[in-house]
């Protein structure tokens, strides 16, 4: 598994803060501001291991990106997709899980929550 991680969020401040945490843990960070850019990033870097994915974004939202990603045979189960979103209702969680998400973080997030979720997925911090 590579140490590449894609952070997808239309808010730059979130991309920066999430990226900062993940960089500290030893990951190499790639960014996208919406689902469409994220699909392009996946084409350029198919070995990305984890995607931290916002839900509500312009152009292509996180859920539509997730469905498009999992429809590709090579990405049917990997990379790991962790939703990071203000959509904190149970129906959204069930929808994301059915769509192929592996974990779900309700904003606001903290470093401890992110590290717990990586551990749950069995992902070792590269550092």
């Amino acid at each position: 598994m590579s140490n590449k991680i894609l952070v997808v969020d239309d808010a730059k401040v979130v991309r920066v803060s999430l990226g900062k945490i993940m960089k500290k843990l030893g990951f190499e960070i790639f960014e996208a501001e919406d689902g469409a850019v994220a699909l392009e990033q996946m084409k350029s870097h198919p070995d990305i291991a984890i995607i931290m994915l916002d839900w509500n974004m312009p152009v292509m939202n996180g859920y539509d990106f997730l469905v498009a990603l999992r429809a590709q045979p090579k990405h049917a189960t990997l990379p790991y997709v962790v939703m990071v979103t203000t959509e904190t209702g149970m129906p959204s969680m069930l929808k994301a899980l059915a769509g192929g998400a592996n974990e779900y973080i309700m904003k606001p997030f903290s470093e401890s929550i992110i590290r717990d979720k990586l551990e749950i997925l069995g992902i070792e911090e590269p550092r």
Partner: protein
Amino acid sequence: MSLSERAFTNMHDFLKKNSGISVQKDKMYLLESRLNPLVRKHGISSLEKLVDMVCSDQTSAFAHEVIDCMTTNETLFFRDSYPFNALREIVFPELMAMPSANIRNIKIWSAASSRGQEAYSIAMTALDVLPGADKQVKILATDLSPPAVEYAKGGIYSQFEVQRGMPIQELVKHFKQLGDSSWQVNDKLRGMLSFNVANLISDNVIHTVRHHSEFDVVFCRNVLIYFEVEERRKVIDRIAKVMRPGAYLFTGNGERVEGENSKWEAVNYNKRPFWKMLSAR
């Protein structure tokens, strides 16, 4: 605000007598960081004054609040994950293979349960692997702190708490969402647990938990490290008195069984030990 030598000694003795915790001098910062918020909350003039108040009436509500403050630790669901995987892969299959498995309950004690995350994690694990676990598995959750036990009993956790250690699949399966972004364990999970206040450093703990009969599994994690060696031995021996031979004990990372060592066999799960009680008491 910091503590003088005399106040530190008095607080050390008070905590040791009432909770078993032995705070060493190099952990003085821990006392200060936990007690200073109480100084502010109650408008007390200094940390020294707080110590005087506690030591002059060691049974007061305020003294209990100080003990809670020093003994209630941040915890998370499925902490360290391996004890729950060991339950899933080793302990529950063994219990279910016993000849009496169909007719007897499986009894589990979470002996330092804090706010209940450990006990509910055990219940979720049981429900995931044992058909009928909600009827057959009985979990007793005890803690020294009455507010922590009440919190566990309520089974309501903040958005932050449910994200600490818990896979999202467990959250959607076993919790219901309340209006204020908090989450409550569902009735099925809640029905597997009972709760009690119990102090591991007192012999009374045996009487408190004994009516639940003999335990098949005991979790006593991340609490032994706070006790001195002699106290650890006594605690382990008390726990052994309410376990059936062949039962399993899970301690925290780096915590080993002391007391009558011949009673225990280390079982390794992914290089992490837990303990099987060998002989009759």
